């Protein structure tokens, strides 16, 4: 049994906290939390960004206060064992955690040693570890992923390895921190069935998550947090009854799978648009887009594809369908990108496209270089014009942060800074790579609003996303990449 008694916590420094400076949301601190989780229970922790979901998980696995320091009051016990004062390596024997970011939760470079890692640390006998790995690998069907470099795996595959390494330890308590943030619908389904299996085995599972739809039928109880406090606890019966409106009022996303905009429907819509206008100038026409990896693997082969101009188009598909590769190709990044783009009667080759299209990356940290938000916008303009830059910042509610360092802002604010520099660059076509991964309902709506306002300014938006709610919110049409990408089926089976 896990018990949090009168827990109040405040992060000692900004490093572990969730929100950015100047953000109105709280920074992940907790106020007087009382929570009891029984053995074998499946609890869903949810709430807006910075509400303290992750903080609760960190309290249970002992990272707070042993790794992230701060002011802690109250007590946290796991099976009567005070984890706040225990050593992390002792807590690790009963509690396992799957983290959000698949890039940075592995210690090893190859998958097999990664699965063995936690058991090796406990000093378990070699034969025992190998036996456990064998069992987990066959149960989770991981045979194709063994003995590979973790750097060659896709986000979904890495998350599978993370879950498998938890399974190998056989720990009874499993914590998951936004495990679906980087996963596609198909992989999320697989994750859900794994959680179901764990639940049947009697493990205690606690998931902190924004995307609640895939967990809604599995969880025994939902705890809704806001500003570091528990605002609502829903039992199984209440979860079955609650309406979408009530959930949205709590700042939560939909609990039911939003209906799919069927592929054929959007295709017909595309044809309709084309038919109505009768010419091709209202389309971006992609011709012979190809991308081959260095090892000769063909990841992208699109003979022809059209994307409407002045609209928001969603590009969907599963991991390995080549979505990110398509974005890189569209922006002309990487020498192996091949293909031409027809836009407003002009043909753009790879280098030409670099100056035509702006990409807002999934990890915006990669594209914020300068010392202040204002500078960030100024260097994007062809001729630096401060008044214009400030006007752009104002349209995105960023004028108050003009002199701040971009890296001190919260994730959502950083994304808006990137959008601001996209607007400043004067480019008409903007690409977004998974803009809502890991965002709560409010911030998802905000992104939807930004996209719609870009459309009103006459820009063309192309959004690569798994997020059905975002598509419903703001996208005009949807292109399923799988229908266009003609990679050799024999090769297509391999996950890129």
């Amino acid at each position, binding site marked *: 049994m896990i018990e949090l008694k009168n827990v109040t916590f405040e992060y000692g420094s900004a490093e572990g906290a969730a929100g950015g400076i100047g953000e109105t949301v709280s920074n992940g601190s907790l106020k007087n939390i009382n929570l009891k989780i029984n053995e074998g229970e499946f609890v869903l922790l949810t709430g807006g960004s910075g509400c303290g979901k992750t903080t609760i998980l960190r309290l249970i696995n002992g990272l707070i206060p*042993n790794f992230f320091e701060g002011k802690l009051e109250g007590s946290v016990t796991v099976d009567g064992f005070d984890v706040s004062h225990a050593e992390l390596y002792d807590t690790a024997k009963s509690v396992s955690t799957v983290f959000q970011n698949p890039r940075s939760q592995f*210690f090893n470079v190859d998958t097999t040693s990664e699965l063995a890692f936690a058991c090796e640390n406990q000093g378990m006998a070699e034969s025992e570890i190998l036996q456990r790995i064998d069992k987990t690998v066959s149960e989770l069907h991981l045979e194709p992923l063994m003995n590979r470099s973790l750097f060659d795996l896709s986000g979904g595959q890495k998350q599978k390895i993370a879950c498998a390494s938890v399974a190998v330890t056989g720990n009874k308590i499993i914590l998951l921190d936004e495990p679906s943030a980087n996963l596609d619908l198909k992989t999320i389904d697989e994750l859900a069935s794994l959680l179901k299996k764990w639940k049947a085995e009697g493990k205690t599972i606690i998931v902190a998550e924004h995307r609640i739809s895939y967990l809604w039928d599995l969880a025994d109880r939902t705890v809704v947090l806001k500003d570091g406090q528990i605002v609502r606890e829903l039992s199984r019966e209440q979860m079955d009854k609650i309406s979408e409106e009530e959930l949205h009022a709590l700042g939560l996303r939909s609990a039911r799978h939003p209906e799919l905009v069927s592929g054929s429907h959007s295709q017909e819509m595309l044809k309709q648009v084309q038919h109505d206008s009768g010419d091709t100038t209202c389309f971006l026409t992609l011709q012979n887009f190809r991308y081959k990896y260095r090892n000769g693997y063909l990841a992208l082969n699109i003979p022809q594809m059209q994307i409407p101009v002045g609209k928001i188009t969603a590009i969907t598909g599963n991991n390995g369908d080549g979505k990110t590769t398509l974005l890189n190709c569209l922006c002309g990044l990487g020498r192996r990108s091949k293909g031409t783009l027809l836009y407003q009667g002009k043909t753009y080759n790879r280098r030409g496209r670099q100056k035509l299209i702006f990409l807002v990356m999934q990890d915006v940290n990669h594209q914020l270089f300068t010392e202040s938000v204002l500078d960030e916008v100024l260097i994007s303009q062809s001729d630096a014009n401060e008044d214009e830059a400030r006007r752009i910042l104002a349209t995105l509610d960023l004028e108050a942060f003009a002199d701040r360092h971009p890296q001190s802002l919260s994730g959502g604010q950083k994304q808006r800074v990137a959008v601001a520099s996209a607007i400043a660059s004067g480019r008409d076509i903007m690409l977004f790579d998974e803009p809502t991964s890991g965002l709560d309902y409010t911030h998802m709506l905000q992104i939807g609003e930004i996209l719609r306002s870009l459309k009103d300014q006459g820009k063309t938006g192309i959004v690569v996303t798994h997020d059905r709610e975002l598509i419903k919110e703001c996208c005009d049409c949807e292109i399923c990449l799988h229908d266009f990408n003609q990679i050799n089926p024999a090769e297509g089976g391999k996950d890129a």
Partner: protein
Amino acid sequence: MEILNSKSKKTLLDPRTKLLLLVFVSVFVLGNAGGNAAAEFRVALNYLPLLLLLASGKWKPVLFSVIFYSLAYAFSTMLMPHCKGLLNFLILAMCGIVLRFMPGIMTGMYVVSTTTVSEFIAAMERMHVSQKITIPLAVMFRFFPTVVEEAGSINKAMAMRDIKFGGKKALQMIEYRLIPMMTCSVKIGQELSAASLTRGLGGPGKRTNICRLGFGWCDYLTFTSLACGLLFVILQACKVI
């Protein structure tokens, strides 16, 4: 089964042998120990890592280094005696850099690319090295490729914003590159440590390891040749004295 395959798939050399090789290359080639007496040994040490790289199937860097070595040897023996002044100095400097540094880099490349993190930890444990030294070194194995991945993404962002050599703002390029690099590295470093701590790294008990370590005939061959080389150098040095 995959796992069984992994047990039989052992690299040619034991990690400890690889470290010894790295020490020899650093001392004799980079450090120029032994002076003229070790000249022949040095040439042998230049080519040994290449043989090993070739054996692990990495022929591209091998081809690259063979071309560079040959050019450097050719320049220093054939061209240099006929040059004077600045030109002589330039050739000396360039050949020196190639012949001194490249073997070390190649050996390092061989060691890092063929050793897994857990093999490395196991080897260090067999040598009774403290965890305080082993763990930070092991994290580096993982950290550098991650940083290289990040750098790739940052490069893309730069290209898209038209910040590149020859483009506008070429001067600020280094600064622009370092800022996101540093923030990402700090964040990744923190997440990596948090993740490994929750999995029990650093406990006081003895760690076990599933990888098989042990010296094979390749290791003994390497030991013997290194010992012979060392003996040869000492004998030559004595004769000179």
